[in-house]
């Protein structure tokens, strides 16, 4: 193999990689940039620095209500989907594989392969058929469904390296099932639980499509933003809000990835000790 040519290829690839990162980041970073721009229009040249859009955003009571709704939905959906995911992941990663393992996993991940609009209208039909009014509760039901694959992914990978002899030892020493879970299983799975809570919260916080069909009059933040996009004079407020959301969600994701990595390293270590 020609070494010099190989290195040249590598150099070209690295340049491409950085160009691609620019393609991913520049559009997103324009939102914070223009959110400090003293102009109603999102256009160059920049007019000067201002924080008035942030002040306007903070004073917007409708937006605050939508934010509060979104946080409530996100907290509930992430908690419920993580608990369901933990129970299911525990059952699916047992040393004696369940006969229904593949079926349940496929069923749980199915929502990833159905366009969100179809899930949205199907749940809308369900709610009207069973007579449940559209509210934040119906949004939570939809969000738990779409959060479940993410919770399962994170928690199953954490539980797969789990040494079940630790639980057996706890039971042999006289702890009941609940105390065994609480004192042995839970602390070992904790990094995975944190990662799952954060990721599912983000999935719920981000979702527009399901909330659009299911929230009724209890607007969530993405639904509120989508409504605001029709009014050009409100765009700077959306920019300020968007910038705040971008920074908060990037921080949450970095935290979730860090927790997951902590978990992965822990799981690898457990396996080594087990062997």
């Amino acid at each position, binding site marked *: *193999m*020609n070494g010099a040519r*190989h290195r040249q290829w590598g150099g070209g*690839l690295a340049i*491409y*990689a950085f160009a*691609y*990162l620019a*393609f*991913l980041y520049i*559009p*997103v970073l*324009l*939102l914070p940039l*223009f959110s400090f721009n003293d102009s109603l*229009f*999102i*256009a*160059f*040249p920049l007019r000067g620095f201002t924080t008035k859009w942030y002040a306007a955003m903070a004073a917007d009571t409708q937006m605050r209500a939508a934010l509060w709704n979104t946080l409530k939905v996100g907290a509930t959906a992430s908690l419920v989907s993580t608990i*369901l995911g933990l*129970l*299911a992941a525990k*059952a*699916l990663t047992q040393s004696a594989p*369940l006969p*229904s393992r593949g079926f*349940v996993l496929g*069923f*749980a991940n199915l*929502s*990833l*392969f*159905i*366009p*969100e*609009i*179809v*899930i949205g*209208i*199907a*749940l809308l*039909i*369900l709610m009207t*058929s069973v007579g449940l009014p559209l509210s934040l509760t119906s949004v939570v039901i*939809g969000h*738990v*469904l779409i959060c*479940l694959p993410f919770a399962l992914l994170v928690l199953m990978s954490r539980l797969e390296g789990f040494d079940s002899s630790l639980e057996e030892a706890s039971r042999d020493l006289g702890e009941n099932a609940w105390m065994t879970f609480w004192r042995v299983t839970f602390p070992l799975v904790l990094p995975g639980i944190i990662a799952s809570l954060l990721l599912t919260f983000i999935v719920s916080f*981000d979702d527009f*499509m399901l909330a659009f069909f299911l929230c009724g009059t209890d607007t969530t933040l993405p639904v509120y933003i*989508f409504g605001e*996009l029709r009014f050009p004079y409100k*765009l700077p407020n959306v920019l300020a809000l968007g910038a705040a*959301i*971008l920074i908060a*969600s*990037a921080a949450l*994701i970095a935290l979730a*990835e860090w927790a997951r990595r902590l978990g992965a390293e822990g799981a690898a270590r457990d396996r080594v000790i087990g062997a």
Partner: protein
Amino acid sequence: MLLSPTTALLLFALAAPIALLVLYSFWTQSGFNVDTQPTLVQYATVFTREGYRTLFLRSVAISSVVTLVTVALAYPIAYFVAFRVQRAKFTWLLLLTIPFWTSYLLRVFAWKVILGFNGVINSGLISLGLISRPLEFLLYNPTAVVVTMAHTYAAFAILPIYVSLEKIDRSLLEAAADLGDGPFRRFMRVTLPLSLPGIIGAAVLIFVPTTGDYVTPSLVGGSDGVMIANLIQVQFGRVNNWPLGAALAISSMAAVGIIAVSVTQAARLAVARIR
């Protein structure tokens, strides 16, 4: 037993709604109520009305282009991280996935801001003196939809391809080199075929949800970029013809599923023959 809460949720929030959706597609709307006499009239409308067929074909065409472009752009990045990056793999993967986790709606909005008549590109080029009048072909057309989706769905391509490249046994590459294959032949005969599962996975993960995307065509598509999801939404909103909306959703989902499965199988067969 641990699985029962999750199974119950999946039955209630996924299986039942989809079953109801199918049921609805055989009913008819009469005023504000639905007539539950089973009929195929909705499907007859879906398949015979020319406007619907045009819209469906356009959705499939746009999604196909999006899939090709996104996978082609993402492959070199996945290759770079899998084979060239030595120690900072985690950092690269994190950098590539963070934008994916930040609000989908805001990323689409960012492109609207970039491509708009008075947007970032136009105002930037005008203030640099490169053009005198804003370019009108940037926003509100299928190309704008493709560009936006190639950005918003990037992570769906990068991650599966990266995982399949990372799995490749490096000794196979050495063997190919030892047997006299140059870098290009080696890539075509070893790396590319072995990364095919990742490419297929990425293609399905992009093609299926983009055909049902509502936000992107609504915000950047304009009237030429309207897709099937917009039509479905209208049936559940302004037009208030839920059975027709259900039939549109079911038939487009079925068609997309058939296309995805047959293209995947064809790709597998083609590669098996090349090898």
